């Protein structure tokens, strides 16, 4: 699974363009930037785990624990991602429910 498209287009720069002014003027990184670098990291972990799984089934793995550790890393990273996503969506819905 390659999610780099999701990170670069729908989460990253487009949001920046639409909103124009971000926090960068104060020398800070915006949430979308932090989130997209983090998503890239997670994607890297998942791809690494997939690569090791492929190596395992083709018999190129020297140490079994490397495969299991990589898959654990990918799982935790993915769970953290969904947790952060849930919180962000929750905040958004909270805003939408606000009475004007």
């Amino acid at each position: 699974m390659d999610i780099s498209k999701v990170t670069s287009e729908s989460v990253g720069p487009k949001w920046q363009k639409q909103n124009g002014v971000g926090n960068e003027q104060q020398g800070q990184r915006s949430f979308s930037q932090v989130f997209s670098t983090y998503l890239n990291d997670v994607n890297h972990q998942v791809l690494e785990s997939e690569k090791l799984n492929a190596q395992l089934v083709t018999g190129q793995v020297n140490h079994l624990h490397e495969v299991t550790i990589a898959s654990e890393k990918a799982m935790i990273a993915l769970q953290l991602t969904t947790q952060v996503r849930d919180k962000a969506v929750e905040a958004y819905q909270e805003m939408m429910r606000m009475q004007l």
Partner: protein
Amino acid sequence: MALFGQFGISGSALTAQRLRMDIISANIANATTTRGRLVDGQWTPYQRKMAVVAPRGGPSFDTFLNAATQGKQSTVTQGVRVTEIIEDQTPFKLVYDPAHPDANTEGYVQLPNVDLAKEMVDMLSATRAYEANVTAFNAGKNMEMKALEIGR
């Protein structure tokens, strides 16, 4: 990600214990090998091998230099690594067996300095150390999974 630092530490220890296990297997497999190495036209028996382990990323010059240039104090090691595999220098066992092809003129054969009882003890120690590292890994993983439950 710094989040997975502990995984790398436990992983390096697992790799080191696997290597120890490989060495012990080689020692047991060669417990009766009389032709380990050819020295000046003479066969010498297999010598027992041992792994030397050292902390990784600890007391080396470049770590201290990097820590100093970045203005940080970093003494936390990044796990363990096997620095070298040394040979046991204890004398070989002498066994009287005149029919053996490698027996000397008095009828004695030099056998490797591998003690099977010692290898068994080392093997158990390596297995238990591996298990201990898996337990440490799982404990760290459980802590992170618990942290994910905050606010759920």
